């Protein structure tokens, strides 16, 4: 009896979480524009989506920004996590405190603050400002994921390598980086996701004609929701599903949990 209750409970929550997604997927194959009646199977909204240049450009922008920003953030964040470890505790706390600000602050405040800064320095908004903004809010996630891996044992190994005559660079690449790898990968993945998912900060820092999927949807919804957006949702959902399954599968093989 109790078991049934559990199942029912989980079932209701899962239904709640997936109902909207299922609805979008079903409607994306709907022949008519109607949002309540399914009148027949059709792929025309997919065609419309792929031939819509604005949607395609937004998809390209979203991914180029996410890739470049998450890679930059990962590089800077990884070095920082290692560098911070060499500091005194007080310095560490101070820096980590600042690191937490973008994490804890409201997106709207971060976005506005960056917008004001760009304009104060006379930087006209463009692709680059979005990129810089995304790096800014991604770095803290990288540091959060990498820092726990920078611990005593890595230190000891690194020092041992130096004692044995390895150069600092060689020891760093051969000893430290492999030890940090799970953290780095987690940080990369996390920043990539945060970047793809971001709307608010992009909304405030984007320049002329720079739309990501999020900002495009925001303006399209105001004009009126078209089923081509449902097609886009379906494809994104399928991609996410495949990617998560893949990551899960790979990380299980290596016993490294990457996504949570």
């Amino acid at each position, binding site marked *: 009896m109790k078991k049934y209750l559990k199942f029912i*409970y989980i079932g209701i929550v899962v239904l709640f*979480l997936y109902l909207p997604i299922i609805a979008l997927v079903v409607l994306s194959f709907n022949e008519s524009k109607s949002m309540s009646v399914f009148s027949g199977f059709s792929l025309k909204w997919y065609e419309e989506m792929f031939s819509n240049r604005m949607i395609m450009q937004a998809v390209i922008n979203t991914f180029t920004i996410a890739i470049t920003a998450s890679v930059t953030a990962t590089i800077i964040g990884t070095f920082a996590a290692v560098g911070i470890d060499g500091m005194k505790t007080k310095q560490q706390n101070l*820096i980590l405190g600042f690191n937490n600000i973008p994490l804890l602050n*409201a997106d709207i405040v971060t976005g506005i603050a960056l917008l004001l800064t760009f304009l104060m320095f006379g930087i006209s908004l463009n692709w680059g400002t979005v990129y810089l903004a995304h790096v800014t809010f991604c770095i803290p996630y990288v540091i959060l994921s990498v820092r726990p891996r920078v611990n005593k044992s890595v230190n000891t190994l690194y020092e041992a390598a130096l004692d044995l005559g390895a150069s600092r660079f060689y020891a760093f690449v051969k000893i430290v980086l492999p030890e940090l790898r799970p953290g780095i990968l987690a940080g990369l993945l996390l920043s990539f996701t945060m970047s793809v*998912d971001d709307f608010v900060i992009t909304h405030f820092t984007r320049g002329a004609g720079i739309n990501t999927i999020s900002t495009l949807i925001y303006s399209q919804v105001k004009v009126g929701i078209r089923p081509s957006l449902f097609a886009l949702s379906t494809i994104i959902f399928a991609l996410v599903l495949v990617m998560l399954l893949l990551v899960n599968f790979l990380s299980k093989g290596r016993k490294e949990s990457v996504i949570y």
Partner: protein
Amino acid sequence: MTYKKSLAVPFIIWILAGTIIPIGAIAYYGLTDRNENFTLENVLAIGDSVHLQALWLSVLLALISTVICFLIAYPLAIIMRNSNLGKRGFMIFLFILPMWMNFLLRTMAWQVLLEKNGVINGVLETIGLPALEIINTPAAVVLGMVYDFLPFMILPIYNVMSKIDDSVIEAAYDLGASTSKVITKIYLPLSIPGIVSGINMVFIPSLTTFVISNMLGGGKINLIGNIIEQEFTVSSNWNLGSGLSLVMMLFIIVSMIFLERFDKTGEDSFI
């Protein structure tokens, strides 16, 4: 301690340019008027009835959403904790998958579902039930918040719960504790850190959102986030917008300190 501190230099520069200067910029705008003279007017403007009303509504809706998220997530975390490992992984997967879908698309989906002639009412009509009319009301906004932020409540609570030692629970049952006792005396105190971060991760984005209220509120629900966004777009009074943002930051800091206190006392009482 042999790593070079200099490795952190790019990061420190980035913090300076991407965090400290921007906050300085917002403080500068917030504390000056259009002619760049110092004023507290923009910050004190939170006292205007219009702004207070919006702030109050934001706090109210954010609180309701947080409580609902907690009530849904807590039993779920316990169920997940008590399942075997294979099932756990699958359940986590199930609960975070929607979170990876674009936030705007998820919110848009609810607009499609809830519209007066939308999916839900279409289904209700065919099975002969009365229509659900909550779109463009605060209820729809709360629904959107719960939907968008629920995983942020489930994950941290589950994380803490999964670390509770089985033997503690078994011992309690062996000593004759009832299930409700186990929940209130063991799970609850031990999972407080998870609850606190869950609350933080739901309450703050709900408090500051303007997207959800915009898309599901039909232009009738004005939260403090909407007011600030409007000052930057429609009204173009950036000084006022910045001043209100400062107040919002203060609000976030205060609620965090408050929650952290709670967190600490929770740990203390356990010891």
